[in-house]
């Protein structure tokens, strides 16, 4: 193992259900102050992993270290500094929003004013004295988020936190999450099946598919994985193709567009020059950048990639 200390680290984390490995050899590293986007299609093993991180279920193999402590040995000390929201929000429908938080506050032993604070943070102040059974799904989700923030955790683990929110609510919650590291010194692990969710807040990304971590790095590195292509539109594509092929560049054609792998700047200048010298009329030169969504789909569709 590396000598770097992580805020949260898993080693070879594996969970088996009925002989199937739903999480397989997962090594996840989370540094302090990061917003870690835990990304994967539904059923990839995200929630199972998160449940293991919180000690709700036991791994078949491997271990979880949080704040440098072993989860199996010091679960309670670790949980003291973790706030979490797993899958759907948990709530007591017959109690008001405030009383729901009070059931947790009694155990977490934070001042009563903290309830007002977290309700403010998720913009639920107006609904505080209403019973939760009157809440919309979005409000319940906000309450769940408020509950996770209640104990001023150092680490926040949020499983699909924007589920059930309307677009405006999503933006609001995303903005809130984005501020957490700088404003409150929190580190966040955020799971989602939507890349756009992660793309806008995460500093680091882990992609899980079929229980295995297939990518884990800074989000910029993921972007570089984009397969860029160069498209050139011209009048006489047949000549163009010959010219380029004599320079060792294989192209594909669509109408009068020639498509080739992306080239460095100097090479592109050279290609254009050659084409023009060969008497061709160049109409357009354009670069295609695969969206992160494409990369994500590519990564998760099968085992052949990466």
């Amino acid at each position, binding site marked *: 193992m590396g000598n770097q200390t992580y805020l949260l680290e898993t080693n070879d984390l594996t969970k088996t259900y009925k002989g199937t490995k739903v999480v397989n050899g997962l090594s996840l590293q989370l540094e302090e102050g990061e917003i870690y986007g835990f990304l994967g299609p539904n059923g990839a093993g995200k929630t199972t992993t998160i449940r293991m991180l919180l000690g709700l279920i036991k791994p078949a193999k491997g271990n979880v270290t949080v704040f440098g402590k072993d989860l199996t040995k010091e679960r*309670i000390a670790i949980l003291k500094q*973790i706030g979490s929201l797993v899958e759907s929000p948990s709530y007591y*429908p017959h109690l008001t929003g405030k009383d729901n938080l009070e059931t947790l506050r009694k*155990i977490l032993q934070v001042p009563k004013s903290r309830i007002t604070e977290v309700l403010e943070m998720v913009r639920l102040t107006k609904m505080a004295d209403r019973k939760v059974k009157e809440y919309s799904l979005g409000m319940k989700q906000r309450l769940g988020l408020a509950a996770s923030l209640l104990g001023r955790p150092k680490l926040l683990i949020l499983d699909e936190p924007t589920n059930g929110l309307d677009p405006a609510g999503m933006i609001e919650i995303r903005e809130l999450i984005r501020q957490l590291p700088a404003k409150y010194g929190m580190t966040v692990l955020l799971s989602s099946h939507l890349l756009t969710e992660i793309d806008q807040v995460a500093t680091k990304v882990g992609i899980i598919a079929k229980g295995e971590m297939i990518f884990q790095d800074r989000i910029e590195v993921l972007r570089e994985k984009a397969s860029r292509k160069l498209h050139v539109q011209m009048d006489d594509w047949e000549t163009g193709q010959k010219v380029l092929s004599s320079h060792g560049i294989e192209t594909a054609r669509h109408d009068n567009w020639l498509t080739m792998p992306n080239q460095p700047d100097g090479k592109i200048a050279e290609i254009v020059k050659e084409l023009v010298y060969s008497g061709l009329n160049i109409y357009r030169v354009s670069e295609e950048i695969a969206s992160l969504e494409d990369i994500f789909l590519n990564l998760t569709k099968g085992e052949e990639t990466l």
Partner: protein
Amino acid sequence: MMFSNVLKSEWLKLKHSKVVFIVLASPVLATVIGLFTTMHVPEHQWLGTITTMILAHSAIFLPLLTGVFAALICRHEHSGGGWKQVLTLPVSRLQIYFAKFIVILFLLTLTQTAFITATWVAGTLKGFSDPFPFVNVFVSAGVGWLACLPLIALQLWLATMLKSFAGPSVVNVMLTFPAVVIANSPLFGPMYPWAHPLLGMTQALSYSLGGDAGFLDSAVTFYVVMITSFALFTAVGSVHFQQREWV
């Protein structure tokens, strides 16, 4: 973390839950039955009414109540997905389990207290002039309370294991109804925990009055079964709660 904080948290969850109606249901019903009973023991003015009320309360309602309380105390964790929230709090699972256990015991205490009051109310309304045999009714209610312990331990185990409101209740109802018949068997009665509230309450009353209602053939069996089943159900239930996977 202090255990009392966990208890306070559990207690708060009962707010607005209308649990008071469940606590009072059996004592109120017993009062009505007590008012209309024609059973009369010549040498003791209160005895007929109190015995009738004890039978009504302890044969069916008390065993059923243990299941209802257990289901109620886990109900919102089941329906609202609360287990994953409660169990990621910085407290041990056993503290959660026993906090729930103690809240159930407290509700049972309220019921038994209400029952003692109910016997007094029924007799007073009937205009009994002899002094209210408080000690005898108190002893009976107390032994009834003890006799419910194994059932509570079992019901809490089932309620946390089956993760549903209906499951444990159905089990409890099915095991409670034969209790009336089984209680009549001197051999099997003391061995059947669902017959224990009835056996315990009736026997304790008559014993405290210096008699023997004859319901209990073997007091030793009764207490051995009570203590061992209580210990067994508590141990299995709490270990299961601690070890299980919270998926």
